[in-house]
């Protein structure tokens, strides 16, 4: 009699385990998708993409793909540079970058170049453009003793308030870049300010 109960108990335990396993298998990844939820998720992801432009680069990116990405970034930077040159700025960014590529070809891989270039693009696009009261005097790169990547140096002239707006934008997302120096000086005329800023790329895997 007692053995019968033990046997029943064991059978039930086994059934429980099997059912649990089956239930979890059926449930995994196959939950019902509510109508509209997929569209909402897609929209959310597009917003994220705009907000976080620096997508992580897949580890398995091939060398050709890397070079292609690098060159396209360089072209984009060149376009920005041309536009800044048109407004009288002294910008030789792409020339500096190409020089750096030629001397560091063997020490860095394409993914690291791409990360760095994306960071530079972010600075150019988000911080150094689009404010009327602030004029870019010079943007250049100079070698840094601490990092393998060159420091980004910028000189700005303008009213304190527009310079403040620039800094505020920089405050937004500087991941991977660390401030080296920020020097704000009142010009001799006393109406505008001149700013020298330099920052160093330290994080090789931003965002």
């Amino acid at each position, binding site marked *: *009699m*007692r053995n019968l*109960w*033990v046997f*029943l*108990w064991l059978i*039930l*335990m086994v*059934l*429980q385990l099997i*059912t*649990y396993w*089956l*239930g979890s298998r*059926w*449930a995994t*990844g*196959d*939950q*019902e*998708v509510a109508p509209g*939820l*997929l569209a909402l*998720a*897609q929209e*959310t*992801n597009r917003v*994220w*993409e705009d*907000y*976080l432009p620096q997508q*992580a680069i897949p580890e398995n990116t091939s060398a050709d793909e890397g070079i292609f990405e690098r060159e396209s970034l360089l072209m984009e930077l060149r376009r920005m540079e041309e536009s800044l040159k048109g407004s009288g700025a002294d910008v030789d960014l792409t020339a500096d970058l190409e020089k750096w590529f030629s001397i560091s070809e063997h020490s860095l891989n394409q993914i690291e170049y791409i990360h760095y270039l994306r960071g530079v693009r972010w600075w150019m696009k988000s911080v150094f453009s689009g404010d009327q009261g602030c004029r870019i005097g010079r943007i250049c790169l100079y070698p840094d003793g*601490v990092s393998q990547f060159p420091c980004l140096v910028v000189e700005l002239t303008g009213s*304190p308030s527009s310079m*403040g707006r620039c*800094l*505020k934008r*920089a*405050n*937004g*997302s*500087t*991941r991977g*870049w*660390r*401030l*080296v*120096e*920020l*020097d*704000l*000086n*009142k010009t001799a005329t006393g109406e505008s300010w001149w700013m020298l800023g330099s920052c160093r790329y330290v994080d090789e895997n931003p*965002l």
Partner: protein
Amino acid sequence: MDSWATKRYNDQVMLPGWKAGWWRFGQPERWITVCWTQDRVSFCFWLKEAGKLAKALESKQLPACNLNARSYVEILEALTGKQTGKPVRIIWMLMFTPMETASGSAKAGGYPVMPDWMEACWKQLPLSLMPSFSCYGLDCIVKQLRDWDPMDNKGTGVYFEALGKGYFFGFGEQETFHRISRPAKLRADPDRELDADWCQQTRMLYRNRTGLELKRILLPWTVKRNSLVVVSGDIELIPVLSPVDVANLPGAGMSEALAFLHYCLLQAEEGEDFIMLEDPVRSYRGRSQSVSTMKTGIYLLACGWVLLFLGACQNFNRKSGQDPALHEDWNREKAEWKESNKRYRKHLADVSDNALPYKLVAEVAANVPQQLELERIHLWEPPVKSQRIHYLRVEGRFHDAEPNGEFRQWIESFKDDLGSGHEQLRLTPDESGLRFQFDCEVPRRGEFQ
């Protein structure tokens, strides 16, 4: 288990039974010995103190017809009196012989066959009131008598009466002979202590069993009544003192012989060579209890399994209800969203960490007093590769002879927030007022307050 006794016990009125607590170490132990014969039950309540002889406090006898689980519990309550609630250990002694068992044999499947009334009583008792152990009474008595010096002489037996029976024990070279008599056989002859026919029968049986001649029978506790040695046939009947030297034995309203029986039982606890009896009732009860627990467990398991199965079926239906491509898209978007969210969290943490220098410059430039003219704000990394600080220098001109409260307040406004202890303010008189230069160290990362 749903008997009256169990309920009573569960109400905490009854004794905690044999569960003696270790925290009572050092306190007197309380024992109840119960002697079960074919038609009578005797209870005795003992107090055992360390280093002292056990003391019998109370005793009680009951004929078989009056005993059931309820009266058993009541007697235990009455014996322990006001001390209910303290732990009590219970021992049972079964005074059965092969001739007295219902089926005519001493054991059935390893257990003694017990009378119906006894079985009924035991089955009604809660497990907590079952004894710590049970033993065969005759074994316990034999063990005590073997240590008694007068029994060393060959051909010596001992006879005493307890619980309406006469007990005879005699030892051979190896064997033990015992004889239990019905009450009607006792004391047929008032002049003699023992019936002559009974003595002769005993002598014959003793000789058959041990091969020795029975020469004398010791009669304990009869010294006061008749100290003369009586000869019955060839056998000397010798009144003697108690086999055990226990002063308080008769103190609980029992006859000396009955007290001796209980004493033997109490001593069995310390002995090693007595036969412990595995009473069938306890095994039966233990089994039935575990089966009932198992039954409940199985019902619960079965209910759980039904629910689980229903849930699993529901998931299964869901799977078959939608287009797999939709799920694929959904899973991809979900993974992407999770990844973006993760990146954003990292980003937020980093922004918060790196924002300090920029915010500091804004803080310095904001709320500049009216008489103050800022000329330079310089934030730079120290030449030594310190990962922790920046230097900050603020220069300007103050159009007044000396710094006023507003100026001090402005300095304090960002100095305090930084929490930096290394700062320096240099004031130099000028043709148009005061030149000032403020230097301090700024933590590189952190949340600017």
